[in-house]
């Protein structure tokens, strides 16, 4: 069972992300957090295999969540799913060691890309 934590302050985006990924991922268990702080707590307690992270969130920004999660586990598998299209933001976040930076909205092609990453990782475990 692959555990996936979706951290996004929008329930709308949580629902879309879950719906897309659930279509393609077999044997996955999903958990949700609605801000960065809750995301960090759930990451620390439950150690999901993958964490999908939005950037613009209350309490703790996605960038800070990634940094703190990496302090807990340097090998943390993080995929960023954000509306921010700025090149500089992407460059900075990619240097934090994330697996992928994907722009919202999620569509079929992007969802398959995420699921390929998760699928390959899960098969290697």
């Amino acid at each position, binding site marked *: 069972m692959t555990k996936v934590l979706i951290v996004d*302050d*929008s329930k*709308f985006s949580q629902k879309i992300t879950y719906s897309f990924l659930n279509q393609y991922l077999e044997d996955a268990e999903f958990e949700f957090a609605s801000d960065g702080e809750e995301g960090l707590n759930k990451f620390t307690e439950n150690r999901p295999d993958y964490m999908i992270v939005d950037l613009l969130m209350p309490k703790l920004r996605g960038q800070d969540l990634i940094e703190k999660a990496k302090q807990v586990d340097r090998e943390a598998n993080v995929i960023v799913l954000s*509306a921010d*299209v*700025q090149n500089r933001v992407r460059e900075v976040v990619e240097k934090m060691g994330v697996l992928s930076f994907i722009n919202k909205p999620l569509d079929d092609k992007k969802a398959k890309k995420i699921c390929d990453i998760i699928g390959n990782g899960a098969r290697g475990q």
Partner: protein
Amino acid sequence: MLVANKISREDILTELFNIGVGQAASTLSDIIDKQIGLTIPEVKILDAAKAKVELNKYLLQVAEGAVMVSSISFDSQLEGKVSLLFPADKMHHFIDLCLHETHVETENTLEFNDIDFDTIKEIGNIVINSIIGELSNTVNIPVEYTLPEVDVLNNASADHFVDSEEYRLVLMMFLAFDIEETEIAGAIVINMTLKSLDDILNTIDRLYNGS
């Protein structure tokens, strides 16, 4: 190069915003999985007083005073606030399209629940990021966003959206999305400091006019 041969900075700015709006429409189309027709908006750069006059016309004629507004402030090297305004009575249909649901009984009411607000907040976030983010990329000036806010205002007036104290110039665009034969006439209001707009226009001059 003769001055007459230079492309006006406003023309270039209009084009840059149009690219952002086009991408926003494409993004919305992906979300609702339907084709969206879009009128190309004209960008107006106005002082606060003129901006209020223009916006009040929209509020009276198109939105009849009731609007759903999604807004985000931005700072760092560019400072300002963007508001997306839509006629509130059209938003249930739009939200249903976003959620791929149908609720005939709620059409045209001004009652919205948490899911409605959450949906519009996220859609506004994505659209504003398309518009401001692309501009930021083009002029290579970074922005940092605050958390998006969403509200429904009855009897809204331009004073709600045009901040004549803190900001001096207002960029306005009126645009119409056509979704399944429903036209949603929206307005985008960008309050920006003079310095921010100067920085953008000067960068545009360097990039496109070589000065």
